[in-house]
């Protein structure tokens, strides 16, 4: 149980307070309701590039990191296809420094040309390091546009191509800030060794005077249901073949989400899971094989990935995955197997309460979904899932005409 209070400032900023006096630290987490899905298709990677620029100084404070480090704080941020999230942890006695820094960059950035130029280069190096100069690093750059034909999830947060990042101009940066970075589009969570009264006072003091700005109304093209089997094969300088099979699935608020999570756990969580036991240990088809899902705000992806052993053909390997899927589509999973994944989920939820930062991030994300208190009802939702629902969902998702297959072949030298 994660207890919290919440209030909203006149300018629309939502604030959640989670007191935890077992730690001498505090955390300030700000989620901006903007991600790569909100980008212009000709300027992809922008939300993420912008995240980097948020550290390049704000209107009244030339350096973001330096004053924070001076008071013993640390910070970081991440961008996803849905959101951009910034967080600070610091000794609770210095919490006001976090308010000062975060409020100033919500008020306005410095928009320095030098910062833009440097961060363009840094992000281009990140593009290379994580996506281009790694074996299999570009898989999702290729898969996303096959799965999404109209929805902006068709590009990854890093962007479609390096050129989009090279072309970013300071005017674009300013426009993006104006559109997305204002109190109405943000959720702030303050947690740790602080009090509700203290947070109210500091929020009013530092954030209360920031103009509300314009509300951004998201209107994205929604991805139509898939009814055609999609497939591509690429060859690259990698040591082993690799297979990806992806299916469209519901969005995060769809009631099938919890069923899908447990379905994925049954198939792939831990060494007792079906794919590991069946295809790695027993049939010896793969050296590794996994299932996972994106859990995105709009229509998501349920994906499989496996590296077949060298004596196994791609066709055999692909057939072996489908065989497991057919099994789960036709035979209800036994009660014990369901209890197992439910128990695992329950204990994961309890263990996650050990981390102050995790709690703060979770509260922010559930508030964005509609209500931070959903966090406290998650376990119950997993416990409501039945074997029948899992089988039904498997039938709904794992259809050939809902599949996108990417065969990633090792170049024979």
């Amino acid at each position, binding site marked *: 149980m994660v207890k919290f209070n919440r209030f909203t400032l006149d300018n629309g900023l939502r604030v959640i307070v989670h007191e935890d006096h*077992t*730690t*001498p*630290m505090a955390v300030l987490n700000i989620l901006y309701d903007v991600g790569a899905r909100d980008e212009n298709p000709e300027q992809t990677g922008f939300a993420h590039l912008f995240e980097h620029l948020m550290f390049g100084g704000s209107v*009244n*404070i030339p350096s973001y*990191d*330096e004053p924070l*480090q*001076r*008071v*013993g*704080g*640390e910070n970081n941020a991440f961008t996803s296809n849905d959101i951009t999230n910034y967080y600070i942890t610091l*000794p609770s*006695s210095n919490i*006001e*420094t976090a308010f*000062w820094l975060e409020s*100033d960059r919500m*008020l306005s950035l410095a928009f320095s040309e030098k910062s833009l*130029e*440097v961060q*363009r*280069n*840094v992000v*281009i*190096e*990140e593009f290379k*390091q*994580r996506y281009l*100069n790694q074996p*299999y690093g570009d898989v999702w750059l290729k898969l996303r546009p096959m799965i999404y034909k109209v929805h902006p999830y068709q590009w990854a947060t890093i962007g479609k191509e390096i050129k989009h990042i090279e072309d970013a101009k300071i005017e674009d940066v300013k426009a993006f800030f104006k559109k997305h970075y204002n109190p109405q589009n943000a959720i702030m969570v303050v947690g740790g060794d602080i009090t509700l009264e203290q947070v109210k006072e500091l929020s*009013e*003091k530092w954030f209360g*005077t920031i103009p509300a700005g314009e509300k951004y109304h998201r209107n994205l093209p929604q991805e139509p249901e898939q009814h055609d089997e999609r497939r591509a094969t690429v060859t690259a300088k*990698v*040591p*082993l073949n690799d297979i990806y099979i992806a299916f469209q699935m519901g969005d995060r608020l769809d009631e099938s989400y919890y069923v899908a999570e447990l379905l994925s756990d049954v198939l792939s969580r831990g*060494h*007792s899971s079906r794919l590991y*036991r069946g295809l*790695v*240990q027993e049939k*010896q088809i793969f*050296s590794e094989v996994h299932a996972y899902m994106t859990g995105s705000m709009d229509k998501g992806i349920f994906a499989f990935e496996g*590296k077949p*052993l060298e004596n196994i053909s791609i066709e055999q390997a692909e057939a072996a995955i489908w065989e497991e899927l057919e099994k789960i589509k036709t035979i209800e999973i036994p009660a014990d197997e369901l*209890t*197992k994944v439910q*128990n*695992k*989920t329950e*204990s*994961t939820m*309890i*263990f996650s309460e*050990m*981390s102050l*930062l995790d709690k703060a991030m979770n509260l922010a994300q559930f508030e964005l979904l509609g209500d931070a208190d959903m966090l406290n009802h998650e376990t119950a939702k997993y416990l409501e899932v039945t074997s029948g629902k899992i089988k039904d969902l498997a039938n709904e998702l794992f259809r050939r005409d809902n599949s996108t297959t990417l065969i990633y072949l090792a170049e024979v030298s």
Partner: protein
Amino acid sequence: MTIDRKQAPEFRAIDNINLLRPAHQALDNGCNVFCFNSGDQELVRIEWVFGNQRFNPEKPLLNVAVNTMLTEGTNSLTASQIADKVDFYGAFLQVDYGYDNSVVTLYSLNKHLKHTLPVLKDILTDSIFPEKELATYIRNQQQKLQVSLQKNDVVARRTFNKALFGDTLYGLGADMDTYKTLHREDMLVHFKQMYQPSNCTILIAGKIEPEILKLITDTFDKDWTNGEIKADTSQPEANPAPEHFYFTEKPDALQSAIRMGLSVINRNHPDFPYLQVLNTVLGGYFGSRLMANIREDKGYTYGIGSGISSLKHAGAMFIATEVGADVCKSAVAEIEKEVNLLKTDLIPEEELSLVRNYMLGSLLGSLENVFSHADKFKNLYFAGLDYDYYDRYVDAIKTVDATHLKDLANKYLDFDKFYKVIVGKC
């Protein structure tokens, strides 16, 4: 209410850091148990830590393979049954091989501990490393190795460790053929000698009610006995390579991995906390000199940092990054410049005071929950140090001055003696 946004709020320096100290209990079989009792959640983390056996260059993979395969079967449980039991009770079972110690960790809700502990007892006392599972392990490791060897940063790290430490656990970088030296009979002998109570430390962290502690000590005391031969945890001396420069060319590389550094003191040396301050200034935090120059000013890389590894029998300080292939030479020149600056110029007081506060805040922040308190203890205990180490550490951060740091840089950081590894294009 008007506020001056240009003016930073008042702040307080950190003066007190309270570390939770464990309760200690020695079992009759020689196993030491340390308990960190705190927290609201009804759960525990239990770690069984075993000192690694002496490195055998003919059979270099025994330590890691035995540790990794502990979950692969016992006389009474198959690998599947082990996984089933652990997962069914919502527990997490991890094996972690480290340079000095091999660890088995169980995360469990207290209410399920009576079901999960017997599985742990079984794998720690009765593992059999079945032939079939061993073959699977070897094949899968070889496949993973092929992928790892395509990653420039991995190749750089392996080359660097081999150069610094030679034929030791620290310098080991397995290739495909190394796996041919793994045999079940050797693993069984190794297991028997290493995984015994006198070579085991148990660390428990979480909400430890008396009956929980009793359950654990009962399980791991009474019928867990030592073998005739003690574990041999001595290690051969490191034999550093005479060659200091290694370049592996990858003609298609978009980026080059750079790793450079040298052997230094470890945590047991009185200079160590001061060297950590010096390392932080150089590359130990986001605002460090390497980051400020090579990422934030030049934009050559997504990230660069330096670190010190303190091992039982050695220590190393290193700088690591991946940079655009076209700027590789410039990046190396900038790294050299930053290292040498520490030796010639005093660190300005403003920068030093920032680093002091950052390091103290970071220490405080690293004590997130009861698990982190246990982790801090491990740093001390396995280095043979006491809690006064952290008093000295905090004192070093607060009192070290720029002259002292400059002297240290001259004592430890001779760029000409650095091992330098580049994988990519330069």
